[in-house]
């Protein structure tokens, strides 16, 4: 039942593409290759980037989590409401992270126990979580947080923006888990052949639970960064985010069928997405053309990667 070899394994093609993009943009816009712009760019991509790590884990098992944007929105709204009610900031953040994990747990429950496919499960919870968000907010924004809260999204530590530090830490964690732990092996193994994993005595359910809970956790961590960045919890915060996250992951060479791909590829996929939208804004590409260019670049990036693999 094994499929033909799948496209999309990370190779140098996509790295070369990224470098090419860098060079072209540096020559086209004097603002692009500046420390300040590159920092801005990384800061902007932090929210998506944090979630790509857990999405990579989930997709490696052969699953998907479409509810990440909704979880982010719901967590942000809960965090905002707690802070507005005067709950201590750290406690509020702690509660939010736990809520995120519970949301992820529910996804895991649907997938493991009710055996609903990950696509449908998380499509369902995407809708449910986002509906809850609107119900909580009544469609309006929640704002008015302690000043210190803005540190997470807007502050600096040793001259480096805090979101970037968080992003790097999450990726470091991801690298370690995927490359050096037993759990990481199981993620790959389950995606490559779930039945064989079961027969090898791996607790497949547990591995999946952890993956989806991590997805909830990182979505809620991202919501903290996001909320601190935008300073107001609108119910549509995070809407459509799953699109960017999945694109970065798959562009980075993680096979949607699971079991294949490396996190370093995802770093590159993420950077391509970030550089591209930043670059087009700098160049003042017309908005409608931006859409076309984005699509083309996505295809060209993967296309070059495939051709370089022949």
């Amino acid at each position, binding site marked *: *039942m094994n499929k033909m070899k799948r496209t999309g394994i990370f190779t140098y093609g996509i790295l070369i593409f990224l470098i090419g993009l860098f060079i072209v943009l540096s020559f086209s816009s004097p603002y692009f290759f500046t420390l300040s712009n590159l920092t801005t760019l990384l800061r902007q991509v932090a929210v998506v980037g944090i979630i790509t790590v857990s999405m990579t884990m989930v997709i490696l098992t052969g699953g998907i989590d479409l509810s990440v944007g909704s979880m982010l929105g719901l967590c942000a709204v809960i965090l905002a409401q707690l802070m507005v009610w005067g709950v201590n900031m750290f406690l509020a953040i702690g509660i939010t992270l736990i809520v995120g994990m519970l949301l992820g747990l529910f996804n895991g429950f649907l997938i493991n126990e009710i055996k609903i496919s990950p696509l449908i499960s998380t499509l369902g919870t995407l809708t449910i979580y986002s509906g809850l968000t609107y119900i909580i907010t009544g469609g309006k924004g929640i704002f008015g947080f302690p000043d210190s809260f803005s540190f997470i999204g807007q502050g600096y530590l040793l001259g480096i923006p805090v979101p970037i530090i968080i992003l790097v830490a999450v990726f470091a964690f991801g690298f370690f888990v995927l490359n050096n732990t037993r759990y990481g092996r199981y993620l790959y193994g389950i995606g490559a*052949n779930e039945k*064989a994993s*079961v*027969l090898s005595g791996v607790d497949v359910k547990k591995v999946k639970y952890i993956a989806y809970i991590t997805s909830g956790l990182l979505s809620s961590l991202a919501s903290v960064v996001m909320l601190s960045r935008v300073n107001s919890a609108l119910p549509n915060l995070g809407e459509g985010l799953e699109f960017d996250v999945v694109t970065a992951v798959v562009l980075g060479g993680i096979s949607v069928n699971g*079991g294949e791909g490396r996190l370093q590829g995802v770093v590159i996929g993420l950077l391509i997405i970030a550089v591209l939208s930043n670059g087009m804004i700098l160049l003042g590409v017309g908005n409608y053309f931006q859409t076309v260019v984005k699509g083309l670049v996505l295809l060209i990036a993967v296309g070059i990667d495939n051709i370089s693999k022949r």
Partner: protein
Amino acid sequence: MEDQMNDYILTLENITKEYPGVTALNDVTISFEKGKIHALVGENGAGKSTLIKLLTGAIDKTSGKIFYKGEELKNNSPIKSLDRKIIPVYQELNMIPTLSVYDNIFYGHEMTKGIALDKKYMREKTSELLKQVGLKVSPKTKARELGVGNQQLVEIAKALIKDVDVLILDEPTTSLTDIETENLFGIIRNLKKRGISIIYISHRLDEVLQLSDTITVLRDGEVVDTRPSYAFDEEHLIKSMVGRNLSRSTRNKEKTVKNEKVLELRNVSTDQVKNISFHLLKGEILGIAGLMGSGRTELAEAIFGRDKITSGEIFVNGELKKINSPKDAVDEHMAFITEDRKTLGLMLDLSVLENVTYASLKKVTTNGTIDKDEEKQVVEEILERLNVKYASLDEKVLNLSGGNQQKVVIAKWLLTNASILIFDEPTQGIDVGSKEEIYGILRKLAKEGKSIILVSSENEEIMNITDRVLVMSNGEIASEYKSEALTADTLFKDSARLL
């Protein structure tokens, strides 16, 4: 060259096939005579399957020429070679699991009335064919509901439905029992009578000697010998395959069995097997024999927690245990080498290394972190011992030859600390030399106090390796023998007893 073309239907000239890091075939020249049975033999990874895939256009050659009926084959592809009536049965099963048996048999060559499928015709024709190959299932059965052996028979039927000039069989009998094998030989001889040329690959050398007209021996991608079959005997053949003399062990077993029940089943039933009671002793090798579909695999799966037990009890080391999942079984120090390596045993897209340690990662981890150096060392050691041919530990298992893949499955379970090992057709596709090695390992394990259940369709294996044998028939245990007391004849009779 010119007049040779009249006798030879297929000729390979100076064929070389290279993969990154491996030369699978090196300057191979072979000619296949029209209307003859030509066998290819060689160790695992010698290049036999590669040669077949080149012939059918499933892969591209690196250099060399192939002539068919006097014409050079260029830009070959599976579609074209099927059109040329070169019909292969590949070593790896190629079923469409979600389609029915009759859909599978006609897949790619469906019969139609106008533009609509002629389902009735296809079903009837399939029934006929299934009878011919000795498979007793309905044409409407979904392919995924069949065991490996039955799928193999469907593959053969799928080849027979086509108009064929050259029939290629790559290890067709690995998961068949003697009855189906004999049946197949009958079919092959008939085809030969009709002037059809046959290329036959097998590790069962007695079969090869009995069936073929010519034998070619491949070693490390090169042709080392080609002769008429009568010019070979088994010893000679092995020598030219392996490149040295091989001592073949006989029944010189040491007594290692201790009178201590490590596993006992009492009246165990599942949807597939009925009322099974037996025990396994410490240090014992217990054989399970039977016909295809007799439920041997199902029994193994029931013990290992893969199949739901509807009634009965299982005792491990004298204690009643509920084994509800393979994880429970592994926790009870059991191991299960499945007969279906592709869908149940291996993660084909992962590396050799990852596959081999997958069931025993705990041994090389501390606090969840893998000690990669240690892991590598452990893996290299076991692969060396099993004589596995691979380019690098990072290579995908998919790229290994069939026999080497099988060895990886075995390696994976040998690395665990299991004390009860269930082997389901463990030596399928494994070459003679390595088989001896594996038998040696089995005995050594028994001597160390491990217990083994060996499910096998090879009578010789059953009779030579085991201490005791259960014969299954139609989902039940028909009889039990001390191995010394068992003959091929009784085995055959008992297998059919409950049908």
